[in-house]
């Protein structure tokens, strides 16, 4: 690695206060060129605030930002971009109703009055094809793209601006392992050309794969900065939350095949997106669904919850065949399915309404439940340690992790027999993840059947009792016990297993 004495970007004595809340307090930070610098910390540790300061979205209460040794004032995102500071935010920033091309050119340098720079677009196209996004057509509307494809477009949009400093805030959270690997190759290539990269992720294996240096933040301060490899996972997690990695996942109970079958799916198919999927979930089991993105596992979960018309196949709940035609049928006591959707912001919650109103929405209208009784939710909220300033506040006042807790509590109120979760920990901090893992295990112990779709294979390995991997709409492999290893999961995801072991439980 090159040694550069003058850092590209320095932050000196920065403080950022929102009213009485101190998001950052006297922070010093530096980022050199030719380096990929990972920034770690729980949600609320101040890392996103720091990134927003660098991207010109927020102005610091106090302190200096120094670029190439000279003070700069980043009054607007545009100023920051003109100086080469480009940020790809966790909250997807594409305009849904515009096409991919229009989004890429939105605010791109030299695109005034709509005249398009074809070189810039060619660069974006090149970036897309290098990260497996070659199939994304420039003329597609963004709202028609899947979440992973949108992230790929975001990455292309950021890179086509030829950044000097690139900020990636959970930039790969929706992407699967093989695409992530390609994105990382691209980021490394950018680094080798002198770009410095600030990288925020909650996945340790990504940080291990990519980062040159690591800074850890906690409670609005920088705790430490060190080269990659100096500290172990355990030590890093200790710095972040004072917790050991062994405590991240709850211990798995011994395998038992005695639980009653709660959900049984036979030959479930839908319009070519997935076909002939058969699996079952027993009481007390957490069953994982993995695979590359868009292999049908997401659609499969939606189908179970009655969101797909004309899905074929047989579904039985506790031995009785059922027909689930809508979410309303799905949640009725005789079926009692609950679904935690992929996008908690727009699908799981109504941001404008209060926490309490959101909690009540699933249980409302049940004859034997009183949705207005807070007791229905408090036990879940207490277990998950929801931090809030009052249940009557809008749910949008909560951080992402706390919002997910509200979605969980809302569905647990109807006492589901089977819980379907679509990537519930995406973009959530370590501590909240731990709480959710413990919650899921505890629910399983109490007899709930759990079907968990995850893009993080650590979850599939550490949390699930059994894992099914989708490939091209079919189950490519099913594994349990010791056969659940990272290698097996990745191999099955890419459909390169020598012998396909499909075990239907």
């Amino acid at each position, binding site marked *: 690695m090159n040694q550069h004495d003058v850092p590209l970007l320095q932050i000196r004595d920065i403080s950022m206060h929102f009213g009485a809340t101190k998001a950052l307090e006297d922070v010093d930070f530096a980022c050199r060129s030719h380096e990929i610098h990972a920034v770690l910390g729980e949600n609320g540790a101040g890392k996103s605030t720091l990134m927003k300061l660098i991207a010109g979205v927020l102005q610091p209460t106090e302190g200096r930002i120094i670029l190439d040794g000279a003070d700069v004032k980043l009054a607007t995102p545009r100023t920051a971009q003109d100086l080469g500071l480009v940020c790809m935010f966790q909250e997807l920033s594409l305009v849904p109703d515009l096409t991919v091309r229009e989004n890429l050119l939105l605010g791109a340098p030299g695109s005034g009055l709509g005249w398009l720079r074809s070189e810039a677009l060619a660069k974006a196209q090149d970036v897309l094809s290098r990260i497996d996004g070659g199939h994304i057509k420039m003329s597609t509307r963004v709202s028609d793209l899947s979440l992973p494809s949108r992230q790929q477009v975001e990455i292309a949009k950021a890179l086509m601006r030829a950044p000097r400093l690139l900020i990636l805030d959970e930039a790969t959270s929706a992407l699967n392992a093989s695409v992530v690997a390609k994105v990382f190759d691209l980021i490394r290539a950018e680094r080798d050309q002198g770009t410095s990269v600030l990288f925020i992720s909650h996945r340790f294996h990504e940080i291990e794969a990519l980062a040159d240096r690591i800074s850890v933040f906690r409670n609005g301060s920088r705790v430490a900065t060190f080269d990659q490899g100096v500290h172990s996972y355990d030590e890093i997690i200790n710095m972040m939350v004072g917790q050991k990695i062994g405590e991240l996942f709850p211990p798995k109970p011994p395998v038992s095949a005695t639980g009653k079958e709660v959900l049984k799916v036979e030959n479930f198919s839908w319009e070519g997106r997935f076909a002939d999927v058969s699996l079952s979930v027993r009481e007390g089991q957490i069953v994982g669904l993995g695979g590359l993105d868009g292999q049908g596992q997401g659609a499969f979960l939606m189908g179970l*919850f009655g*969101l797909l018309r004309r899905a074929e196949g047989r579904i039985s709940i506790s031995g009785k065949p059922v027909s689930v035609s*809508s*979410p*309303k049928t*799905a*949640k009725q006591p005789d079926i009692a399915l609950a*679904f935690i*959707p992929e996008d908690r912001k*727009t*699908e*799981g*919650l*109504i*941001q*404008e*309404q*209060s926490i*309490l*109103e959101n909690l*009540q*929405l*699933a249980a*409302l*209208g049940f004859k034997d439940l009183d*949705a207005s009784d807070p007791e229905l939710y408090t036990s879940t909220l207490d277990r998950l340690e929801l931090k809030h300033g009052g249940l*009557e506040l809008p749910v949008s006042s909560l951080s992402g992790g706390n919002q997910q807790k509200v979605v969980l509590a*809302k569905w647990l109120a109807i006492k589901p027999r089977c819980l379907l979760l679509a990537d519930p920990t995406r973009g959530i901090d370590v501590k909240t993840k731990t709480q959710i893992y413990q919650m899921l295990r505890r629910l399983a112990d109490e007899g709930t059947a759990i079907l968990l779709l995850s893009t993080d294979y650590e979850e599939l390995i550490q949390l699930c009792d059994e894992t099914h991997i989708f490939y091209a709409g079919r189950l490519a492999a099913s594994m349990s016990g010791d056969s659940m290893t990272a290698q097996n999961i990745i191999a099955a995801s890419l459909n390169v297993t020598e012998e396909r072991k499909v075990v239907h439980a």
Partner: protein
Amino acid sequence: MNRAITPDSLMPYIGTALLIIAGSFFFPQILTFDYLTQQLQIAAFLGLLATGATIVILLGHIDLSVPWVLTGAAILSTALVGSGDPLLTALAVPAALAFGALIGIVNGIGVAILRIPSMVWTLAINSILLGLAVLNTGGFNPKGEASPLMVSMASGRVLGLPMSFLIWMAVCAVITLFLTRTPFGRYLRSIGYNEKATFLSGVSTPSVVFAAFALAGMCSAMGGVLLAGYANQAYQSMGDPFLLPTIAAVVIGGTSILGGRGGLFGTVGGALFITLLTSILSVMQIGDAWKSIVFGVIILAMLLFQTMRKGAHA
């Protein structure tokens, strides 16, 4: 929970009070019991329409079929009375309400099942109803008359208060109960904010849309019955002047045109304000052109004031 009385919804009441005070300097007769109760009577027509419109707007949609649902209900009820048959006369009001509910359900089907934007669908329905009415009457004013019941509903008085005003208040009270005390009301607002998340929470969103449009259609029909009773006849296009004031009354009352936020308390104020403004502008004896301009400017000023107040908070 949504508080019923918000600063936004108090605005039209303050506006109404200011209008009365300012108007009384020039026309002292404004402060008489007769004038004010007459305004309440007239405001009830607009108010009933706006009550229905509030439901649909809370849902995040809009109902542009108000004018011809109103006219259709008026034609239907007066025609039934005009037949002279006592049974048909008795059925006049229920039949008009059923007609409103039916058109509302047709609107609901277009919006919830066929997924046509409500602005387009209800406009088309309005135009079809217009055509049907003209076909039915040959383009002349329809024959028929109002029943004594309809006349007393529109022009009668109870304890000195206009009957139409009391009907309006009763309808408001019932619907407010619906909106605040039942799951239906909660679903309605939730759909207005985020239909997808509401559906994914296991709510049968199409049934809520049906019910909302049906209720709105019945409110429009009720407005038509009262207007027919007031004029003792139905006439072509009697609903046309009401469409925009209806929507204006809802929005001035602090209900968000995007759905979710708002309520009937503000709408009542909005209807009172618009009725009084129209009345005072006509007693001022200025030209129609200026009347329109002043009306538009005052509505804009009220809305601007609301947005600026919100801007100051954000």
